[in-house]
């Protein structure tokens, strides 16, 4: 009995490594489909829309008289939408963490505005040119240039290796698509409900 168990464990040990490799490969392959399902599902979109409405309600009640400058209103909504989107990512992606971190930094900056303005960004060292390994892959200068532009578009992805950047970009695009779908549905619902409200009030007057 004991010898049987011993051999079984021995076999399990050697197959553990291969099963671990297999699991890692399956995880890698399902990881991409998992993220897409996460951003494509209707329930995720609905949850995001509800959270967005709640967050917007909170911000409009915080600035007690809502700042009537129309240009700023859009910016506020955009910031709230980005923050809620980043929270929906549950901290698993770099861009979502960067969005939340930059919000934090902004609120700190606003409190110590005078002190922070003096330092500025001149002292930050620039990232060196791509390493030799990456250079061999991006032999065409066009690719290297595009990678740099892409890294500037995706938040928080300035100095990371190309593979991570492409992964982040894929997730970021799927998230942005969901954001657009959810906000479009939201504007539709709000404008329809407003039209109902205005329509019913005018009919009651007549």
């Amino acid at each position, binding site marked *: 009995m004991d010898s049987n168990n011993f051999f079984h464990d021995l076999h399990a040990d050697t197959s553990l490594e291969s099963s671990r490799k297999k699991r890692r490969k399956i995880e890698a392959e399902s990881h991409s489909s998992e993220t897409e399902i996460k951003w494509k599902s209707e329930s995720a979109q609905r949850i995001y829309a509800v959270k967005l409405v709640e967050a917007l*309600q909170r911000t409009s009640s915080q600035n007690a008289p809502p700042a009537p400058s129309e240009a700023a*209103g859009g910016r506020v909504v*955009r910031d709230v939408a980005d923050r809620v989107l980043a929270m929906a990512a549950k901290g698993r992606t770099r861009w979502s963490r960067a969005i939340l971190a930059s919000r934090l930094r902004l609120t700190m900056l606003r409190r110590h505005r005078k002190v922070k303005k003096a330092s500025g960004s001149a002292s930050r060292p620039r990232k060196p040119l791509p390493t030799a390994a990456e250079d061999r892959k991006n032999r065409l200068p066009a690719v290297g240039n595009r990678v740099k532009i892409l890294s500037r*578009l995706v938040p928080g992805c300035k100095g990371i290796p190309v593979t*991570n950047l492409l992964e982040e*970009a894929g997730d970021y695009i799927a998230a942005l698509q969901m954001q657009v779908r959810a906000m479009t549905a939201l504007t539709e*619902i*709000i404008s329809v409900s407003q039209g109902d409200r205005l329509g019913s009030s005018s009919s009651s007057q007549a």
Partner: protein
Amino acid sequence: MSSRRSRSRQSGNSRITEDQIADLVSKLQQLIPEIRNRRSDKQVSASKVLQETCNYIRSLHREVDDLSQRLSELLASSDTDSDQAAIIRSLLM
């Protein structure tokens, strides 16, 4: 090929394999409607995919900005909480 991929993952991405990049580029290709709808079976060049990705992200940003503007205008004109409760209810259904 699979062993090569998992080995490079273990080394912490110090050697970026051709496979990984091709994988991710094709994944991006699927996401971008421009390239997907063109229905070209042959491989699109990586540079083209990257360019389309950048353009697509910029257009998505613009769309979100527009929607934010519209939303802020709509919300500014309707202040009642009952409205927003009705919105949430209709969203959940």
